[in-house]
């Protein structure tokens, strides 16, 4: 067994064990009524909650766009984060007269978004709100998807856009905050190109692994809280390993 495989196995097992421990710990905290988390403040997430509240008050919709990652592609985790966030957004806006509308650039993702909406409304005890037309495939190519999502954003009484998933530079069309019909846009992607585009164009861009923090900030569950904790631990572990490696290389122990 090569060193790479051993390291991968150790990383996976360690992460799984830590997620389990922190999930159980968080559940115990919640049972004892201590629901306060110790996360740093992300202003964009606070503004998203405010935009959701305003949408409910104004009778407008949220447009959630899940990107174009196929579920079998390496970019799928960003789409999974998008789906979990969608579940929470749908539950939190279930008191609204105008439920959120979801667009995606991949067939599997479109089906999963419909399924997520159905599950969210069932959990929120408002199954009658579910409308399969609210979760749709916008287009099969990146530009077709972005153009169709732009039309949804303009024509369906949308007051806030939430872009979470895999996007390319063409997402600038969707996230342009100077567009008067586009008052609030929160944008997060796993793609470096999309992140730089969002930084320049979107009102509320999330950079790097902040994407994976969205469900935890929307209080999606104990496992999301645990995941953030584990990511922090693993990040420090990696930093120590890299510094250690650089030091050992410097003194000539390893090459």
């Amino acid at each position, binding site marked *: 067994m090569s060193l790479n*495989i051993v390291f*991968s*196995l150790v990383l*996976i097992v360690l*992460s*799984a064990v830590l*997620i*389990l421990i922190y*999930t159980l710990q968080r559940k115990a905290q919640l049972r004892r009524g201590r629901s306060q988390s110790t996360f740093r403040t992300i202003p964009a997430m606070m503004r998203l909650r405010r935009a959701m509240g305003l949408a409910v008050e104004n009778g407008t919709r949220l447009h959630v766009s899940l990107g174009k990652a196929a*579920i*079998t592609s390496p970019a799928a*985790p960003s789409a*999974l*984060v998008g789906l*979990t966030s969608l*579940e929470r957004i749908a539950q939190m806006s279930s008191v609204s007269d105008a439920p959120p509308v979801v667009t995606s650039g991949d*067939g*599997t993702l*479109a*089906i*999963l978004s419909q*399924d*997520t909406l*159905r*599950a969210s409304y*069932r959990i929120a005890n408002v199954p009658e709100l579910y409308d399969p*037309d609210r979760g*749709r*495939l*916008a287009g*099969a190519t990146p*530009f077709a998807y*972005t153009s169709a999502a732009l*039309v949804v954003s303009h*024509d369906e009484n949308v007051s806030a856009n939430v872009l979470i998933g895999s996007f390319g*530079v063409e997402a*600038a*069309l969707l996230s342009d*905050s*100077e567009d008067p019909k586009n008052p609030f846009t929160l944008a997060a992607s*796993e793609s*470096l190109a999309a*992140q730089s585009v969002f930084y*320049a*164009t979107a*009102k509320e861009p999330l*950079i*790097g*692994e902040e*994407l*994976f923090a969205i469900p935890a900030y929307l209080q999606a*569950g*104990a*496992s*999301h809280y645990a*995941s953030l904790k584990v*990511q922090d631990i*693993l*990040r420090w572990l*990696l930093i120590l390993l890299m510094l250690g490696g650089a030091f050992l290389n410097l003194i000539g122990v390893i090459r």
Partner: protein
Amino acid sequence: MRAPFSTAIAIAVGLVVLLGYFLPIDSLRGVLVNWAVTLAGLAALVAILNLVGVHWRKLRTPKHPDLYSLVFLLAFLATFFVVAYLGPSDPQVQTIVTNIQIPVEATLLGIVAIILTLAALRLFSRRQGLMAWVFLVSVVFFLLLGSGILGFGSGLLPAGMVQFFQALPIAGSRGILLGMALGSLTAGLRILMGTDRPYSG
């Protein structure tokens, strides 16, 4: 527990595929991945039919029928029947599709370029503070570096310094990508542990 049967299938299949990277069970992993690809293709077909249904209903709205939906439906039907009759690899089909799709996408790409230029110019009215300056200085500096003005042979910067600056964005990207990889790892593990279920069952 929500949807125990679906959750059990997801966990079992996920574990087999993951173990396939470490144990000699490549054939089983290959079969499961192929099934997933086939299902994804079928899902795309269902999603396209759903999209056609959405536009059909938008067109039949009594108050404000959406005429763009009519354009979509006509284009869809024309493409569907031509491709079904001639086949997707027919040179005529390829010519028609590329002569429509490429000019449209090139136009949109042009609009993206304009939007990005304007967004960069307006960045300071929206985002004030150190990070906006860092962003602007980095963009200008690395554009100049990439253009070759400050590069090797220009004499403006020593070769060692040019190499250092050229490696900087790579280091930054790696830092972000490492964070993304850790996030992806925990997202995948949540699915494998059944605590995150993007399916209702």
